[in-house]
């Protein structure tokens, strides 16, 4: 127990490298998920039935398969398709496909939470479909999706830990390396202290995001309640 703090202090540089990789991975995933999410979430609200069904199929599959399987599929499957991926891009891709599915659900809910009359009025004014989305629906949906989206970001941060399994030196892996190193070099096993510390840091980052999500929910009113569900960790 007593060596826990000094061990963490000694290895601060490695932990910071890990934390940086975690945050970078989360940032990349957030951007890519948003692109996929806005695209698919919008397509989920168009008239053509087959388009909506294809989007629903994508969302369902990506959310039903364990994320660990999605990431392993991409990491181990890519070389067999002749495009070997480094661990970082493989994990980023897997997380983004999954995050995009969750993002699409949120965006779809956001667009559907905009009162129907808005779309009808815009159509009556002769606006083209893309202008209706750009000027009328997206801006109003933004308000409704913000709380849920912040919640999704907390889930993305959590799920970046899966990178440790395919060799990305993110925060969890950094912790694992410290444990290995101290076991080999000093003959001690600090797994309890290090993993407790890792848990606490994740808790710190994610509970800030969760608190922000709840605050936004209160601040932005209940306009979106019941329509845009904040994904919880159970949907990981």
């Amino acid at each position, binding site marked *: 127990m007593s060596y826990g703090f000094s061990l963490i202090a000694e290895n601060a540089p490695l932990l910071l490298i890990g934390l940086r990789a975690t945050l970078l991975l989360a940032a990349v995933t957030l951007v890519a998920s948003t692109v996929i999410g806005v695209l698919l979430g919008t397509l989920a609200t168009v008239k053509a039935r087959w388009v909506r069904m294809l989007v629903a199929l994508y969302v369902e*599959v990506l959310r*039903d*398969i*364990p994320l*660990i*399987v999605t990431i*392993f*599929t991409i990491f*181990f*499957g890519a*070389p*067999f398709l002749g495009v070997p991926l480094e661990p970082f891009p493989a994990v980023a891709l897997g997380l983004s496909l999954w995050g995009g599915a969750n993002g699409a659900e949120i965006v779809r809910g956001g667009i559907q939470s905009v009162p129907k009359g808005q779309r009808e009025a815009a159509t009556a004014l002769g606006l083209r479909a893309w202008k209706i989305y750009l000027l009328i629906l997206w801006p109003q949906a933004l308000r409704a999706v913000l709380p849920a989206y912040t919640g999704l970001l*907390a889930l993305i941060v*959590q*799920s970046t*830990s*899966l990178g*440790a*399994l395919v060799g990305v030196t993110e925060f*969890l892996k950094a912790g*694992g390396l410290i*444990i290995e190193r101290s076991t080999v070099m000093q003959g001690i*096993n*600090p*797994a*309890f*202290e*290090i*993993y*407790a510390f*890792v*848990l606490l840091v*994740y*808790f710190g980052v*994610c*509970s800030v995001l*969760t608190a922000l999500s709840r605050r936004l929910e209160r601040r932005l009113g209940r306009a979106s309640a019941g329509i845009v569900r904040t994904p*919880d*960790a*159970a*949907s*990981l």
Partner: protein
Amino acid sequence: MDFELDYLLRQLPALRAGILLTIQVSAIAMVLSIAIGLVGASMRVLRVPVLSQLFAGYVEFIRNTPLLVQLFFVFFGLPAIGLTLSLFWSGVLALTLWAGAFQTENVRGGLSAIASGLREAARALGLTRGQYLRLVGLPLAVRTGLPAILNTCVSLVKNSAYVSAIGLQDLAGVAFDRIASDFRAFEMLAVLLVGYLALVLSLSAAVRALEHRLQAPFRA
């Protein structure tokens, strides 16, 4: 590389054992986590000092930390301070603690949805708070909270794949092992996709059917 059905057929016994382990781990964790949920939600609703706050903290902690790190903490961290569990039980414990937090919230949601008149009636009849929970509150809460409770169970089955990360030979574990040893990515990845989709979709279909049945008395 071609898809070889022969190879896949030869792996069937191992995969079957994997699926059975997936079901076993999930089933045990399911039962235990619902037990945690019933106890946790009762403590929260009865505002039992200390325990109520402990459960609130537990729920927040689990929700805001990655399941994978929780699993590593249980499997690698606890033995370091002398609490050694087998591989199997480490996996079950981590999944139970994880799902238990969500079940606590689910049951609590069910409890708070009960009309306050019922609680007042129970008190008027002279039931203690414990009796109210046991005889009135929890049975109703489990029923109203059932969709959420069962959804968490479905997530639990899906997320049981995480136990492959500590070396348990569940469905994911067996498939990942075969990819690493036999370089049979296509066959095994196909098995994983089909296997988990089948597990999750059939469970969710069962959940929806059950919900439909439970709604029967309230339909016109």
